[in-house]
């Protein structure tokens, strides 16, 4: 056992930290603070193109697909450094969809969409969830029918995040109407300027997301990616990696540090500092203890992915622990800020730009998003403990 970064990994971390520090210009920070935290604004686009031009986007892709072949451990370090800065890096585009296009796309898809991703010019939204197909995703009913050289898509997706500024939707649709469940699903790239495609906003507790509608949307056959009927494998193949980026330690650690520094600097009327109170120290210590386990679970999982030994239960353990810890962490930290912690950014008296007021509102997405935690616990009980499944 040797539970620390290798010198090479430390060098990468240092390089990335400096890189993203300079990338986050005041203009970009300002834009991201103005209701566009998810990205999509001109400064976001500019920064993403810069990241592409500097060659970072293909870091973790296999060399055979034109990537740099970084290990999952190195890819994790990259993710952590990005998340520390708060830059809304489109991980699903770059690391879930990109490599799939590199492997399965035809020459034209590679020349246009894939190159666009690598240059940081293209963002893709995920179109999986439907009003009646959430956790039971395989029951989705959006359909694609073959018509000559085209596919014609009809249906509705919900919670299509980023669709308000993305260039494509990575859409799961049923291509075999007689099929049931996970058989007969295929993946499509739907351009956001396609006729018959429309979106309407969904304002959630936290961020904006979208409903997307597909009314006789016509896409050419090459936009079906990875072969007819192979959609389910493409969806599930990326889930472990997605779960790991959901519970990344980087941004949570930054929040803890910001609140601790605030408490260490802020004076109370009696001349003491906020951090002098025992209960504040207790909350910070609780946060620290929980963060340490999260960091180590993430490291271990990235190491297991590198070694090819990741077990199904391990990914679910990190998902359950990390997402539920976040909820607890926001509470521990908000208590320290007190009632002023409830003030939104730009309000007079807001603390730390209202970051925690925002974070607690978005935090609840993660316990059910990316595979709801009850299903993860079922996986842990069955795969980790060998218990029989119900029903």
């Amino acid at each position, binding site marked *: *056992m*040797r*539970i*620390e*970064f*290798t010198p090479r*990994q430390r060098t990468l971390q240092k390089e990335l930290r400096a890189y993203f520090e300079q990338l986050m210009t005041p203009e970009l920070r300002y834009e991201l603070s103005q209701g566009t935290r998810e990205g999509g604004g001109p400064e976001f686009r500019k920064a993403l193109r810069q990241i592409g031009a500097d060659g970072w986007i293909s870091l973790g892709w296999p060399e055979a697909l034109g990537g740099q072949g970084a290990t999952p*451990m190195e890819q994790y370090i990259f993710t952590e450094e990005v998340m520390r800065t708060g830059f809304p890096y489109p991980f699903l585009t770059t690391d879930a969809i990109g490599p799939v296009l590199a492997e399965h796309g035809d020459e034209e898809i590679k020349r246009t969409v894939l190159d666009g991703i690598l240059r940081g010019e293209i963002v893709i939204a995920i179109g999986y969830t439907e009003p009646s197909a959430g956790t039971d995703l395989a029951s989705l009913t959006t359909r694609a029918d073959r018509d000559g050289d085209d596919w014609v898509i009809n249906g509705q997706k919900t919670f299509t995040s980023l669709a308000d500024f993305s260039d494509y939707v990575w859409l799961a649709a049923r291509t075999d109407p007689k099929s049931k469940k996970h058989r007969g699903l295929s993946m499509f790239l739907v351009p956001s300027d396609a006729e018959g495609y429309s979106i309407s906003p969904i304002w959630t507790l936290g961020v904006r997301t979208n409903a997307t509608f597909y009314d006789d949307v016509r896409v050419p056959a090459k936009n079906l990616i990875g072969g007819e009927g192979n959609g389910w494998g493409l969806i599930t193949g990326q889930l472990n990696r997605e779960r790991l980026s959901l519970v990344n330690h980087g941004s949570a650690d930054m929040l803890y*540090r910001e609140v*601790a*520094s605030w*408490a*260490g*600097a802020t004076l109370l009327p009696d001349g003491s*500092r906020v*951090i*002098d109170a*025992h209960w*504040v*120290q*207790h909350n*910070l*210590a*609780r946060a*620290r*203890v929980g963060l*340490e*386990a999260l960091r*180590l*679970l993430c*490291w*271990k999982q*990235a*190491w*297991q992915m590198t*070694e090819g030994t990741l077990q199904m*239960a*391990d990914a679910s*353990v990190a998902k*359950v*622990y990390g997402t539920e810890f976040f909820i607890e962490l926001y509470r521990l930290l908000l208590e320290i800020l007190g009632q002023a912690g409830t003030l939104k950014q730009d309000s007079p008296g807001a603390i730390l730009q209202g970051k925690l007021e925002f974070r607690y509102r978005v935090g609840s997405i993660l316990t059910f998003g990316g595979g709801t935690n*009850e299903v*993860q*616990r*079922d996986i*842990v*009980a*069955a795969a*980790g*403990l*060998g*218990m*029989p*499944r*119900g*029903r």
Partner: protein
Amino acid sequence: MDFSLSDEQLELQKLARQILLDQTGNERLREIEKEEDRFDEKLWRDLAEAGLLGIGIAEAHGGMDLGFESLCLLIEEIGASVAPVPIVPVLVPTALAIQRFGSEEQARRFLPGVASGETLLTTALIESGNEEFRMPTTKAGRVGAGWILNGSKTCVPFAHRAERVLLAAEMDGGVGVFLLDPHVAGVELRRQQATAGEPQFEVILTDAEIAPDDLLAGPESAASVLGWIEQRSMVAHCAQALGVAECATRMTAQYTSEREQFGVKIATFQAVAQRAADCYVDTQCLRVVTQQAISLLDAERDASEAVAIAKIWAGDVVHRVSHAAQHLHGGIGVDRDYPLFRYCLWAKQLELTQGSSSRLLSGLGERIVAEFRASD
């Protein structure tokens, strides 16, 4: 980054499991627990014969010199089998400390006997009303070339069978670390009944003599020696707690997968499966924080924060897992004919040994203040 065990360590783990599996069945444990001391001397000898007691001891003193990390693997197995042997008190705070800080003569005097299983040693970690190992109230006064001790220690495991009790006492110029022979005049041992059944003693010291060659560290180095001992002992207890939590979780999964009510295995009720899954998640968290502390200590790196964090997790996890395991078992979980009760007893024992979660959180909070507080 490497979380893997070496082939040698895997072999060692296998060997330990085999010996312990054979000798810690419910019947055998029940027999041992009828005796005055919860101590299986035959098992101790077998562990010694297999070389396992010498994992952390240098080859020159009859050990295998495989390091702290390997020793913790054995300790985890002891936790998982709730074996009635004083593995942590003898091997970690005492033998490792003598090896690291003792004179060549002291090492020669005690370590070969530890590795061969003939010599038991122990450490007095606390005093009544004082759990600060590094700040004892027991006093050591100079008499001739040696010392005499006055004061008391409490909850000292196996003090009656130990050749020496490592303890700290206040002396001229600071604190000293001594190796007390508990069988000399001036030492009174009062047997205590501790929750997990481990033989423990209150040690009353009234002008108890310490021979000149039984000083381990004087005031110039005692603070760092005691810190070194404390950290390794805490992490050893975390490894033991990990074994306890992991085994209690497995037993629960197995029992609920067999037990039927309403015509089905109760594990198929999601309320049952999900709570067992929480035990698994908790245990994985305890595993990684314990591994990190072990890895740092093994490399002789600063680990004070990692050690505190690991022990906080250990205290929280054994508490939660123990009660979830009992609850999911129902009545049989608390029946002393069924082996789960021992895990619940050891869970509480380990939770409160060397710092409860709340106390350690308070200490960690002070470290955080030192890191983040602006100066006035």
